[in-house]
């Protein structure tokens, strides 16, 4: 049971954001229903989550692997299974999903050099974001432009936040998207 009430019937204040969530995810995730205890934060956090969970400057399929790696590297449990399903639905093979685990990605034949550079960045942020050295950053610059690097940094740190919030509040979302994603 979550740490707060779960708002099943939207109040007037959250009716619009519930509708946006339903349009995007196919249903209203429990995370959104818990946030609805505070309409202000329900709106801003859900809007940001909708923006993050979709196509962007980074291909969504790879973005999902970055999210999985972030959740693992930061010891977060919230929605891990849902992101694994989403990663598969977006076209990632079981090998690509499995090889995000621990250091398997380093020697994996299923990732490009650019993708491996991102996983190294995720691990460094999880370990110590103050210590992102040239050995981490220069390989990223070879494969990604400034807008993409900004998006990757935002996605990694956003899901560090969402993972922490979901785990703290005890939210369960076994499925994030109940409609076709592609």
């Amino acid at each position, binding site marked *: 049971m979550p740490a707060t009430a779960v708002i099943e019937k939207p109040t007037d204040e959250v009716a619009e954001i519930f509708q946006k969530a339903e349009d995007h995810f196919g249903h209203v995730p429990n995370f959104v229903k818990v946030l609805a205890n505070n309409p202000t934060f329900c709106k801003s956090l859900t809007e940001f989550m909708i*923006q993050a969970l979709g196509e*962007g400057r980074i291909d969504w399929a790879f973005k999902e692997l970055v999210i999985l790696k972030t959740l693992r590297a930061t010891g977060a449990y919230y929605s891990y299974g849902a992101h694994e399903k989403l990663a598969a639905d977006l076209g990632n093979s079981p090998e690509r999903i499995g090889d995000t685990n621990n250091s398997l990605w380093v020697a994996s034949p299923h990732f490009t050099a650019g993708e491996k550079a991102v996983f190294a960045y995720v691990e460094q942020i999880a370990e110590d*974001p*103050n210590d992102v050295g040239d050995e981490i950053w220069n390989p990223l610059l070879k494969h990604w432009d400034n807008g993409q690097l900004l998006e990757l940094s935002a996605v990694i*740190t956003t899901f560090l*936040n969402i993972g922490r919030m979901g785990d703290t509040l005890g939210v369960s979302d076994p499925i994030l998207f109940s409609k076709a994603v592609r």
Partner: protein
Amino acid sequence: MARLPYIEPADADPVTKKVYDDAEARFEMVLNIFKITGNAPEIAEKMWDIYFDILQEGPTLPWIEKELLILKSTKMGDCLYCVTQHEVVSSRLGVHQEKQEHIVGVEYRKSPHYTPGEIAILDLCAHVVLRPETIPAVVWAEVKKHYTDAQIIEIVATIGAYLQVSKFGDALGVQLEEVWHGHEPVLFAVEAPTSKASQHHLKEFMAKQPVG
């Protein structure tokens, strides 16, 4: 030096410019952390709305209590950028130096400057930062004694958002603006950063002379 260029207001696209205008109206200047998000305007637009919601009175929590959570969570993450700025913001809101100092470690638990409610949310904050799985029932019981569900969402959202932005800024090497040069650290004077890289950043910052 930051890892990505700061997009200055003169070079910003209309979406980013609107974010900058809102930021300047609220914070008297466009901070470097805003300028770096100008590299992806669509992200800046949504991301900063969360922080505009936090950095104000309410809707359900006093701003000063949110500042305590920001100081606690970003100090635990060794974020020089956030801690420096929020020592000043907290001070403006009335959190005096000794109260700030007592936020380090668990000193706040026996400090005369903290209410039982503030102690409860700082205890919660420490667990959220380190590992939410370890939150004891007694911590939840204390939090729920003093705060409503709406406030709990605001508490957890504040901690989570500052975990996010502090690591985002640190990973991208966002630097403190000249206006902060000469600021005497409070929290890091009580306890140095644990990260060697952060210790180095602090030393470099301390060597900078105040401007003007």
